[in-house]
């Protein structure tokens, strides 16, 4: 057993500096941020307490609701498509053939690059290259610039998100697929199962944890997406494709509404926290107890 003095000494040597930085950079802004939402903070100082006014204003703000709904749609579409595609890719790149490693690299590559640059690449594709190619080949899908219309711009963002994130989630699914015990698969083979039955009844239940992780990461990343939104659509046309992050950023830094921007940011945090906890709680029920 350590003495109290030794314990304090260890704290000072190992934990004081990291915890002080963590507190100053994360805990203090977080708590101050919540406090500011009950005031008329303008970035410089607080003149009065306004109670719930900022929250009431946020709920009555159409831009905020528009952005929240747009974000919700984006999160749901990304959550489903990223994981369906990623799981499909994981099945494809685990077939026993040489050469699949090259394919893995191709699928993973977009993930290495930051969202801002990915958005710029696709801005060029949607706005310039694809319409020209459509004209030359007669394939009409991308003939119009997808970024000029709210609905197609929404799907443009989803497509780029799937392209960006599916490679990462694929790695998680591949790791899970490879760690399934051979005994379980061999036993089911003796029982005369086919490939689809093995996938649904053996593999899926045994890799439920990978789904929990991957769905959680997709959910969080999609809710917090900023870079891609900024560089691909910039919220256009007419601010109709602003995800909540960009909306909050502009409310505070472009329009100088610090306390209302912060209120929207806190609401965003609450929504993310509830969604993430609910998702993990639901996914956990599917995990096999071993």
């Amino acid at each position, binding site marked *: 057993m350590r003495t109290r003095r030794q*314990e304090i000494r*260890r*704290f000072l*040597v*190992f*934990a004081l*500096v*990291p*915890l002080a*930085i*963590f507190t100053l*950079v*994360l805990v203090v*802004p*977080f708590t*101050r*941020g919540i406090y*500011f939402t009950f005031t008329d903070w303008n*970035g410089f100082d607080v003149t009065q307490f306004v109670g719930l006014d900022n929250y009431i204003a946020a709920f009555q703000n159409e831009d905020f609701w528009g952005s929240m709904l747009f974000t919700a749609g984006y999160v749901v579409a990304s959550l489903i498509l990223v994981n369906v595609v990623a799981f499909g*890719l994981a099945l*494809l*790149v685990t*077939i026993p*053939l040489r*050469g*699949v490693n090259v*394919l893995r690299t191709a*699928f993973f*590559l*977009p993930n*290495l690059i*930051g969202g*801002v*640059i990915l958005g*710029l*690449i696709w801005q*060029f*594709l949607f706005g*310039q*290259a694809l319409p020209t*190619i459509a004209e*030359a080949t007669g394939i009409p899908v991308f003939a119009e610039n997808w970024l000029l219309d709210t609905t197609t711009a929404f799907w443009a963002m989803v497509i780029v998100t799937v*392209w960006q994130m599916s490679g990462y989630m694929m*790695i998680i699914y591949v*790791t899970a697929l490879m760690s399934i015990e051979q005994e379980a698969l061999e036993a089911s083979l003796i029982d005369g199962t086919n490939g689809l039955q093995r996938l649904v009844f053996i593999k899926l239940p045994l890799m439920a944890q990978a789904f929990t*992780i*991957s769905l959680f990461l997709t959910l969080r990343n999609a*809710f917090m997406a*900023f*870079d891609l939104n900024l*560089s691909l659509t910039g919220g256009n046309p007419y601010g109709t494709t602003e995800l*909540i*992050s960009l909306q*909050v950023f502009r409310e*505070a830094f472009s329009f100088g509404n*610090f306390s209302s921007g912060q209120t929207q*940011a806190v609401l*965003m*945090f609450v929504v*993310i926290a509830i969604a993430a906890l609910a998702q993990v709680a639901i996914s956990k029920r599917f995990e096999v107890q071993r």
Partner: protein
Amino acid sequence: MKRTHRINIFFFIFASVLAVLYAFPFAMVLLNSVKDKREVRNEPLAWPTEWKWDNFTEAIDRMDYWQALGNSLIITVLSVTAIIITSSMLAYYLARSKTKFSAATFLILVASMIVPFQALMIPFVGLFGERGLGLPGNQFTIAFFYVGFGVALSTFLYHGFISNIPYELDEAAGMDGASAFRTYRSIIFPMLGPVTATVAIINALWIWNDFLLPSVVLLENDQKTLPLRTFVFYGNYTSDYGLAMAGLLISILPIVIFYFAMQKRIIAGISAGAVK
């Protein structure tokens, strides 16, 4: 057996088509980066008739490429090193201390990982920007911030590993007269190699590509990182797509080279880091 092999080949071909689709955007950047702007506009798919290598020298020049690259490198290396040191020490303390305080601290760290930067960004700027403490927007300030935001996840990863190192090792080192710090530095830290690799890779990819934090911290042009410079550069030269593509290509290149140099470690690091 033959039938499954044929099915596998079919799936392989299907996967290859998908891989080509995934690589298509990069191919377009590569192809059009050596073209004249009129050619990009009229024939984005065609082979360049005239190779315009000038695009690269001009892009390097106009986005202050070498400076931006240097800034990104310094910030990434500085921040990742600081995160490795602080989080491995904190994790060692938390894993070896059985007090209520350390249990509560660990819980707070884990909970903090769900807080998005956006929820902190506005008071953060108020606290540290020119309206608050007025910290200078340089690489040391931003490394300090990255430690604050990155320490929770990295501590969590180290904690899991250190908890599995038998406590008898610490006791033996203590018996030989080593101080607690000496035990950490000479016995524990050298054993953490695999986690340190994971922590380094996860944080390096995040910091290298990060946009939001540097955009509110690094306000001077000569301090800006590669993503910030690329974004501004692209916005200024959308009329000349050949030049813009050359700019995108050179800003993608460093991380792709890094990936091919350390492919195995990066994939291993990501699979290890995702198991939370």
